[in-house]
């Protein structure tokens, strides 16, 4: 029987609408022209998403490692879950509940994120749960909450973007990361709006800008402060807005005074004339938006940096008004919802603080446990990974929907920590680099095989609907959590029916900031998604936030008094260049999914080092030659890609690959003090010809689907680690 199911893409935060058309396991992606976000458009990743549903491409049986250095072998579910439950319980017994950790992901559905948080707090009783969204959204989230009292990526639908007069995109490259969104930026320019792009690289997005500010890596904060300074000097403040709708302007103004144009020129490398041009374009525009992405956020000063860009919006009256505002371009598919429902170390569902007594009481009530039984805040993502196998750290880890061996900063160290665990359990649909280290691998159902909601970058809660049955041997994450909770014999009810879990999530989130109480599967289907907050079923949802008041106690948005500071690691004589990392069009995040798809690998087969012709001449390097890039933390080898689109003092590497070309072997885990975001976006490196540096091995080979080892065979042996032998 042929079926057609309306659903959404498994990849980025746009959550483009798509249809799956076909029979049984043979489905194809077809367009869904009526879904408002993308109107049928899909990028190459979305178009090829169904390739991973094929049996050869993914895991179909649990895998188990008998002894530390031994191979993974196929196992039954009963044996695998038994081993997991026993292992988790043993660690809890011997070392306490906080020695058991949970690591989630921003790709998990709301239902999974919610149930994972509940599982950690109720079934395991551990404080130590965090997720890879900490590496992604946390700086923007923290700045959002400080300024507006609420964190939702965009305070308006994407459809408002073309209506604004001036848009500043800071460290965002949607042309490669979310191509279907590009339409909105094109329409903006067609309507006469101005596009300013801030990026150390002349990306495909920057090429479309009216003004490209090619700043020095790590100077986004200085730039924002410098623009605020110029807005003040040039009389472009919206004093009425500042008086009526904000607080804290005076200290922010003083901070901007410490960033006068000539100083900011020195810090950013951008001529004063360029700064003036940008300040004038934005300051004189009647409406304006600033959108940030990982560029300014993934810094050890990410929260302050986003705060400074919000200041610019507030000072010019470009927030809380139609077609104006600050927003963050969320990264992962459920990067928004994933941060709202309790897989963050410091949060409970509904974006509640785990330290707030009222929040604890409410959520404990929904879960049927005593408020005092809920743990307090635990370690943030990098701190959690850094603690693995340490005396006071986490000794047994359940990891779901994440691949930190590739995606964590200082990945060589993180890999060592993962190896030092007493028990590593990975639930994933493929044998990712992290799963290869696991003691138990649980084959998970994937996007088209299960139903669940995600919340896209607009705050629109949407529904992915099951289109086909998962292969034999595969289970959903919800079922795994339910069965583990039962085996652990703890308190609390755990359902594995997505809609039932969502109904519980509605109750748990009710009255919280991310209030889903009025959202139901039925409404999502009928309304092309519902924007939170939506406190009851009669409520229409909230596409646009803050039009009347901000979500702070006094309703006023708060300026941030912030000062530029250097990165945790600036170039010096030994490591004279900046390394910045990012994405390419045809790959997604750690590549666990996209590197297994032939068409995407053909488009983007492996890592590379982008460098300027001047630097290439200095190093005597030719196109395609292998380069060794070294930082204080590690080394990576990849071919040179020479382009005038990058600054001569900076090299760029995409981070989608593992092995020799792994960019995150180099990156710096220096954390933002507020958000605990690591400084992925810049560190200091040395670059040499690999041959000169004694390296001739080619880097990070692509691994197309058909080459993946079939499940059931022996898999990569896990090297023994001294910590494992007791």
């Amino acid at each position, binding site marked *: 029987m042929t079926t057609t199911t309306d659903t959404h893409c498994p990849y980025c935060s746009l959550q483009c609408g798509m249809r799956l058309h076909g029979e049984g396991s043979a489905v194809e992606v077809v367009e869904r022209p009526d879904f408002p976000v993308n109107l049928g458009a899909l990028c190459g990743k979305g178009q090829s998403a169904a390739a991973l549903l094929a049996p050869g491409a993914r895991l179909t049986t649990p895998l188990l490692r008998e002894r530390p250095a031994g191979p993974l072998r196929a196992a039954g579910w009963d044996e695998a879950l038994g081993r997991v439950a026993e292992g988790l319980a043993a660690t809890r017994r011997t070392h306490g509940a906080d020695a058991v950790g949970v690591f989630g992901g921003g790709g998990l559905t709301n239902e999974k994120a919610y149930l994972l948080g509940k599982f950690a707090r109720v079934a395991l009783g551990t404080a130590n749960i965090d997720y890879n969204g900490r590496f992604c959204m946390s700086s923007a989230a923290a700045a959002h909450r400080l300024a507006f009292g609420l964190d939702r990526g965009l305070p308006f639908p994407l459809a408002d973007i073309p209506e604004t007069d001036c848009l500043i995109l800071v460290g965002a490259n949607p042309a490669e990361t979310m191509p279907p969104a590009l339409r909105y930026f094109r329409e903006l320019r067609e309507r006469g709006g101005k596009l300013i792009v801030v990026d150390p690289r002349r990306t495909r997005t920057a090429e479309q800008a009216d003004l490209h500010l090619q700043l020095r890596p790590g100077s986004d904060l200085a730039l924002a402060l410098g623009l605020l300074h110029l807005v003040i000097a040039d009389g472009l403040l919206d004093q009425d807005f500042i008086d009526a709708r904000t607080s804290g302007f005076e*200290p922010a*103004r003083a901070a901007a005074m*410490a960033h*006068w144009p000539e100083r900011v020129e020195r810090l*950013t*490398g951008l*001529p004063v004339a360029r700064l003036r041009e940008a300040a004038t374009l934005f300051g004189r525009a009647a409406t304006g938006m600033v959108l940030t992405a990982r560029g300014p956020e993934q810094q050890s000063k990410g929260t302050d940096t986003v705060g400074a860009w919000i200041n610019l919006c507030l000072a010019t009256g470009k927030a809380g008004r139609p077609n104006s505002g600050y927003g963050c371009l969320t990264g992962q598919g459920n990067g928004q919802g994933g941060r709202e429902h309790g897989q963050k170390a410091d949060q409970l569902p509904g974006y509640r603080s785990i330290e707030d007594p009222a929040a604890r009481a409410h959520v404990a009530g929904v879960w049927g446990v005593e408020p005092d039984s809920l743990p307090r805040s635990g370690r943030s993502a990098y701190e959690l990974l850094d603690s693995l196998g340490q005396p006071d750290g986490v000794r047994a880890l359940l990891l779901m929907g994440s691949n930190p061996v590739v995606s964590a900063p200082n990945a060589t160290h993180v890999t060592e920590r993962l190896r030092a665990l007493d028990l590593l359990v990975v639930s994933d649909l493929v044998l990712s680099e992290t799963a290869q280290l696991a003691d138990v691998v649980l084959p998970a159902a994937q996007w088209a095989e299960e139903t669940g909601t995600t919340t896209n970058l607009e705050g629109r809660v949407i529904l992915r609907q099951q289109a086909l049955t998962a292969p034999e041997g595969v289970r959903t994450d919800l079922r795994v959590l339910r069965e583990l909770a039962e085996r652990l014999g703890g308190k609390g009810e755990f359902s594995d029916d997505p809609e039932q879990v969502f109904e519980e999530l509605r109750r748990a989130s009710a009255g919280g900031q991310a209030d889903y109480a009025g959202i139901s599967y039925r409404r999502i289907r009928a309304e092309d998604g519902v924007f939170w907050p939506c406190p009851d079923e009669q409520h229409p949802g909230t596409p646009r936030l803050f039009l009347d008041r901000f979500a702070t106690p006094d309703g006023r948005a708060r300026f941030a008094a912030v*000062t530029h500071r250097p990165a945790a690691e600036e170039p010096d004589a030994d490591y004279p260049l900046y390394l910045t990392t990012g994405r390419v069009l045809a790959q997604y995040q750690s590549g666990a999914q996209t590197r297994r798809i032939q068409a995407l690998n053909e488009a983007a087969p492996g890592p590379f080092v982008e460098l300027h012709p001047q630097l290439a001449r*200095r190093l005597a390097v030719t196109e395609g030659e292998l380069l060794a890039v070294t930082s204080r933390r590690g080394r990576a080898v990849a071919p040179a890609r020479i382009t005038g689109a990058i600054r001569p003092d900076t090299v760029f590497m995409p981070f989608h690959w593992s092995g020799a070309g792994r960019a995150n072997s180099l990156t710096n885990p220096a954390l933002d003090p507020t958000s605990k975001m690591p400084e992925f976006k810049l560190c200091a490196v040395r670059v040499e010809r690999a041959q000169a540096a004694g390296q001739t091995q080619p880097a990070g080979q692509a691994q197309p689907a058909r080459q993946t080892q079939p499940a059931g065979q022996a898999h990569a042996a896990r090297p023994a680690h001294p910590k494992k032998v007791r």
Partner: protein
Amino acid sequence: MSSGERIAVVGGGMAGARFAERYAALGGTGSVTIYGAETRPPYNRVLLADVLTGRYDAEAVTLPVGGAQVRLGSEVVGLDLATRTLRLADGGAETWDELVLATGANPVLPPVRNRCQGDGTSLKDGVHLLRTLDDCARLATDAAKAGRAVVVGGGVLGVSVARALAALGLLVEIVHQGPYLIDRQLDPEAAAAVRGGLRGLGAEVYLGNRARAVRGSGRVEGVELANGYVLDCDLVVLACGVRPRTSLAHAAGLAVRTGVLVDDRLAASAPRTHAIGDCAEHRGTVHGLSAPAWDQADVLAARLSGADPDARYTGSRPLARLSAGGLEYAAFGEVDETAEPGLDVLRLTDATRGSYKKVVLRGDRLVGGILLGDLATVGALAGAFERDDPLTDHPLHLLTSTT
């Protein structure tokens, strides 16, 4: 550093404010008190010429000071390093655990006769300095009534003031002793271009001239030059540079040459005593510019806050910048290729666009440069100067923008 430690910052200028702000931001737990002779909280002195033109309100240029207590109008008049006590002009005394001297610099008063009133100390009516916001307010009040101004001194400050006064509609004349304007930073060609720019704004420049006397009994009526000419005017601004304020340090027995001597830790010659900014002399250099002052403040804040007790200041490579209307230049390092043998120069002049650009090289090292009129490559040039790497490429790219 232990909490509760008392840090006294003597001087409420840019260096002191920056130190206080960074100390708090870096997690310093001591209490910082800034003693300032002026009656305004610390402000950004770099912007004074634009306060004069009205681009900034006087209140709008206040700088952040972290959590520091600012004692306004509290001039420190004496230091006792043995008892760690400072004396205030009002007779009060305070003690400290760490002392930061950030006393800044005083304007140099040129030997011009009749510049003062009968009392011999305060300047004659219509004669001005521009170092403080109070100076600025007085000058602005006078400028509003004046028609012709003479600026004595054609350095950076003189040119900035002349530009600001011209923007206020005054006829301005600059008297400069040197052979060309801003002769400490520019070369003759660049200076000639600046002079041309000033002329376009209505400001005339007399080079190789010295002001000998101020004319007028009650109020200023003109300036008499050494060559006998008299420039009629109703306003005079003395802009002859600054000199470190070291008398307090000297009287306290600290080692002082041109400035208060400090080592790479910014420590002066007595324990728990430090100096930063325009008053400090480090490795024989007194910078007198904001960027090095802030570099020093950052290092000292890192040390005293405990964020980096081993931080060292090893010097700055400052860039001189003016960007005011049509007058815009960046200059750094040695810009005179004839200053020593073996220097090379690369020069680009574009008369149509009014730009003049040059770099001075020693072998493959960049030792100085000027960008005037077209600063598109200022980031690359400043970066190359700052890094001091050998240049492997032809340096033309440092002067011409590729985009």
